[in-house]
């Protein structure tokens, strides 16, 4: 499996440019598969709306800060992806790991893309990185 995946695009070296925090905040866009991920994780519209409001905190994402308002984020090693951790406390269901990347076809509109998400208690290994790196590549190819 590893070889099969490496043959595609994961074998390429990804060079991550250091994004600069825009003064007016980031434009936020979401790709369709991400929307479908969230529909599967949260069946209720209300829960998805709350998640949406947490995602909008990314408008003020600063690569120099470890928190986005009150949410932790990390770089996913070996990829151009970042993860935002929307944890839920004191409840049975775990939080959500949101995958996002920076891609700004128009430099005057710095843009972050929400690529999707999975439950924090789900495995996040090579297979999942392949899926989200793939989505990020589609964004880079298609967004204009």
């Amino acid at each position, binding site marked *: 499996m590893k070889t099969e995946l490496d043959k595609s695009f994961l074998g390429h070296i990804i060079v991550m440019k250091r994004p600069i925090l825009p003064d007016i905040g980031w434009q936020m866009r979401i790709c369709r*598969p991400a929307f479908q991920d969230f529909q599967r994780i949260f069946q209720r519209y209300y829960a998805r709306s709350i998640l949406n409001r947490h995602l909008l905190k990314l408008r003020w994402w600063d690569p120099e800060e470890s928190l986005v308002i009150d949410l932790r984020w990390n770089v996913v090693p070996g990829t151009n992806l970042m993860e935002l951790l929307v944890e839920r406390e004191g409840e049975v269901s775990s939080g959500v790991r949101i995958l996002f990347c920076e891609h700004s076809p128009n430099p005057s509109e710095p843009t972050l893309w929400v690529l999707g998400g999975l439950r924090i208690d789900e495995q996040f290994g090579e297979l999942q990185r392949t899926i989200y790196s793939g989505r990020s590549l589609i964004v880079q190819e298609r967004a204009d």
Partner: protein
Amino acid sequence: MSTTELNEFPSDAFRALLAISREQREFIKRFMECSDEVQSVVRSMFAVLEYAYSTDEDKQRAFSTIADALFLNPENGHGSYGMDLTRIERDSAMGHPVESRRSVISNRLDQLDAQETSFADRLSKLLIEKNITQEELADRIGCTQSAISKMLTRNARPRRTTIFKLAEALRVEPTELWPQLEVAAILDSVSDFLADRELTPEQAKSLEAASLRPPVKVKTRELPSRKRN
């Protein structure tokens, strides 16, 4: 050249191609129209679908990625690819397929807005009352002044943990900042539990661990009628 003549073509692969359905032909056509990079993504997603250890969730994610790569579905007014996250909430409420649900969803969104406004007002009032600056509060709860400012201007909905941290820093009950805090958490838990068809091994383990934990001591106040003389 007619189809009959094509069928006589001495190639099994070519004959197999003629036998495929219209949908399969459409799929191949769309795949061929993609750039090399996107084709590479589609091939990787098929590898995920075929991988013996992929979970159902992984397969669904791979499948929706393939659909996204091959079947472009641009939104009107949202540009050619992707959707504007700031508009998606209201747009999807207004575009709900069941018309009667639109007003229900819209009311719930108004309710979220009202919760955030109420929180911002209460926090702002407490800061004035207790003569605490945004910087001081940020220091006490370990975030930036900018984060506090965003919460005060209703640009960032606080997490539950943040509400508890703020309450502790301001020495007030969390419900003074967010009156429906407990009710909302219980309703969310119940709803999530009911929505779960089956617990994952991790959830079952966490539930079992929770049931074995000693009960939390809750601070209580004696009711006047029970006070001893």
